[in-house]
């Protein structure tokens, strides 16, 4: 299993730099917002946490379709499916590798974008923390979408369409926790704990669903 994790990490570093493209997309999406709403710093700092969260959500979806498809294209997926490690664990490890290689860099880049959005230090910290806790859920949900569309030739867009609606709860609680940290009356902990619970819930459901889908997607 460690071997699988290491292999996937190595691949993502050597092949085309998926993490770089993800961060670039993240930065571009967030950077475009001020052009749309205007460079009013007060407004930007007010909508900042939501913008950064949405940007991270979209960027996290970016490389998702390749999660299993790359393995399917060269036949590795068949061999991965044949080994009963069990399969849920294999999928979980692949999710972890994907998260480490593609999503964690987004979390690390998010404070920088917070600065662009003129967010306060507390808000930046809160967004980073909620992203760190909430983004694994995006990957786990995404794994189901990636597994379902693994045999489709142009699955990328479809994965986004399938996965985005399922990500809404993560977005809601992530953003509300980030706002709660900044605005006084709202307590920070309840939405944050719910976000944590969502992530843990999908850490179980996501790989199980993806494993089931992969078993049935055989062609």
């Amino acid at each position, binding site marked *: 299993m460690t*071997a699988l994790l290491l*292999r996937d990490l190595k691949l993502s570093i050597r092949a085309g730099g998926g993490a770089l493209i993800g961060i670039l997309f993240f930065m571009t999406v967030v950077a475009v917002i001020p052009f749309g709403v205007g460079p009013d710093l007060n407004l930007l700092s007010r909508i900042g946490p939501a913008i950064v969260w949405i940007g991270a959500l979209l960027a996290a979806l970016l490389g998702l379709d390749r999660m299993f498809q790359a393995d399917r294209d060269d036949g*590795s997926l068949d061999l991965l499916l044949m080994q009963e490690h069990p399969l849920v664990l294999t999928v979980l490890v692949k999710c972890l590798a994907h998260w480490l290689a593609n999503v964690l860099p987004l979390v690390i880049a998010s404070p920088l974008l917070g600065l662009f959005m003129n967010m306060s230090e507390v808000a930046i910290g809160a967004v980073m923390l909620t992203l760190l806790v909430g983004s694994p859920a995006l990957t786990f949900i995404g794994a189901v979408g990636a597994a379902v569309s693994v045999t489709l030739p142009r699955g990328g867009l479809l994965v986004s369409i399938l996965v985005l609606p399922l990500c809404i709860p993560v977005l809601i609680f992530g953003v509300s926790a980030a706002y709660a940290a900044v605005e006084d009356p709202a307590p920070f902990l309840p939405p944050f704990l719910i976000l944590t619970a969502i992530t843990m819930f999908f850490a179980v459901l996501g790989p199980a669903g993806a494993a089931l889908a992969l078993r049935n997607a055989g062609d």
Partner: protein
Amino acid sequence: MRLNAENLSAHRGEDLIFSNISFNLTAGEALLLTGPNGSGKSTLLKVVAGLMRPASGRVFWQAEPAETGLPVREVCHYLGHRNAMKPELSVAENLGFWRAFLCDRPGGTGLSIGEAAAAVELEAILHLPFGYLSAGQQRRMAFAKLLVAHRPVWLLDEPTAALDVAAEALFARLIRDHLGRGGLVVAATHQPLDLVAAHRLEMKGFQYAETGEDFA
């Protein structure tokens, strides 16, 4: 050790690909699948490998009590059309990954990466990225993958595609060695592979005829 298949049939969509195929193989025996394109050779291999669900029938594995309960896919190596190797990683990294991931069955004898590469006569280029290799070399390295972790059953789908005569002979020798050690081989191929105790199964679309000796 016995690999049994009973009344297998498979569909692709609505099409019936084959029906009522049965065979059983014991240690040291090989089954060669022949037949025109589209007759279902690859599909049969996938069904045996557990990658496709058969429409009817079952495949099961009998061995010492400890292994009898195992699903068939656990005791098989599957070499499909695609090599299951990453072009970005070096050959050694690829083989090392499969060696670690597949693990040896208890009592198995997986070769080290160097030995496996030597067995396919390509030990000199272990350090190169897999993508740099020619198609034939890639195929040979994919075959080396079967040697790094021991599995009693080898399922080979057109193993000698893209290979020259010398490499074909090499593959035939490796397959014979595997059979000699008590392994089982099911191969879809048009090459004779110089096997002595080989059963043949000729697939003819959704009917089939058998020309071997002892099919149940």
